[in-house]
């Protein structure tokens, strides 16, 4: 049985924009991943989900200015649970400087700003987990 990439994906906190994160979830599913979609959650529940679901990746969406507070908190809490191998991705609306700081200083594996092609996200995730992307069957 082929190994699937398992992704836990959530909107951070009270943020209300569900369109993008759900869309990304659908495209990751189409690319053969198992996506555990959490809707809106806070760092505690996101980390709990990553733990129980044996996630390879945690994807966080933030479009409401909480990225610098809650994003790093998720990384920190994953570490506390011994889940350092889980790669944290973020996407959403934020200043490029913030995006850079999240990657270089706060342990976020990769930040995708708006209008990143889905294909690029998929490719990046497969590469980071280190398993080949399954070929779709007709």
């Amino acid at each position, binding site marked *: *049985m082929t*190994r*699937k990439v398992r992704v836990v994906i959530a909107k951070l906190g009270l943020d209300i924009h569900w369109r993008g994160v759900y869309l990304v*979830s659908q495209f990751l*599913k189409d690319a*053969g991943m198992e996506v555990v*979609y959490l*809707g809106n959650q806070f760092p505690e529940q996101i980390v709990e*989900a990553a733990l129980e679901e*044996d996630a390879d990746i945690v994807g966080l969406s933030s479009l409401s200015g909480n990225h610098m507070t809650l994003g790093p908190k998720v990384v920190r809490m994953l570490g506390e649970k011994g889940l350092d191998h889980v790669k944290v991705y973020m996407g959403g609306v934020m200043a490029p400087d913030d995006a850079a700081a999240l990657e270089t200083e706060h342990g976020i594996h990769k930040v995708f700003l708006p209008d990143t092609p889905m294909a690029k996200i998929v490719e990046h995730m497969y590469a980071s987990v280190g398993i080949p992307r399954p070929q779709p069957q007709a």
Partner: protein
Amino acid sequence: MHDLPALIQKSLQGDKRSTARLISLIERADPAAPFILEQIYPHTGNAYTIGITGPPGAGKSTLVDRLVQAFCGQQYSVGVIAVDPASPFTGGALLGDRVRMKHDRGDRDCFFRSMSAGKAMGGLAGATQDAARVLEASGRQIILIETVGVGQSELDVAKATDTVLVVLTPESGDSVQMMKAGLLEIADVYAINKSDRPGADSLSRALQVMLDRKTMAGGTPCWRPPICLTSASLGQGLPELYGCIWNHHDHLRKTSALEERRKSRLQAELQQKIEAELARVVREKILGEIEAAGWLEELWARKIDPLTAARRIVAAGFAETTGSK
């Protein structure tokens, strides 16, 4: 890659991370899976398992969440396995049942695992049952298994539990279709969820009539499935539902039904595992040799017919495999 015995040991002591990893290994039929199952099996057999099924949109996940709340409130340690369908094209899946889990800050003694119906080796029921065993071995006393009641394999999952809860809504009142789906046959308890909406009473009456008919046709059954009106989002009817589930549990305990159910499940599982094992042997030992042995040429040349060829191949293959043991 892993120190497997240590992983198993930690899981048996209740470590969540190890438990999560063991389930993954079993799910993807890792070469380590048989060893894991062998190790944990002695620690299983006592958890009370509840299957929850029903049409999409019936509010199963929300109801599961409220039941978890109730069980945890009684100091039970709970496990949940929620199964969602997978894409037949890519094998990917969007597992959305956690969305409905209550928005609290993790103060419940619960392990929730989402599972894709796509990767089940030898049947979805088998994979969920093994995952449930891992949960039980790690200390979970009550295990809820939730599936969308749309296909036969999903129904099989629900059936492979001690108590089957079928969740309906006033909107899912198309009883003919439900009958066809076999959904109503397997229920031990009914919940008519979203019962604050019109139509709940008439659905309840329709179910009662159906149960009456069943009674007349099949003599007096020892358990008549109760029908609970609930509204998970408004928190209505939940204590009653909780009570009905325990009643069924007590009924199973008092009669010998629990043991019978579990034994017949083991019987079915054994049978199914034998079939899976046969399929594996066929795939690994026999199919590969067909081409090498030139059978296709013989068929093409009309020297032998397919059925006779198949019988000879299998007989020869078995002689070899059993001989080699």
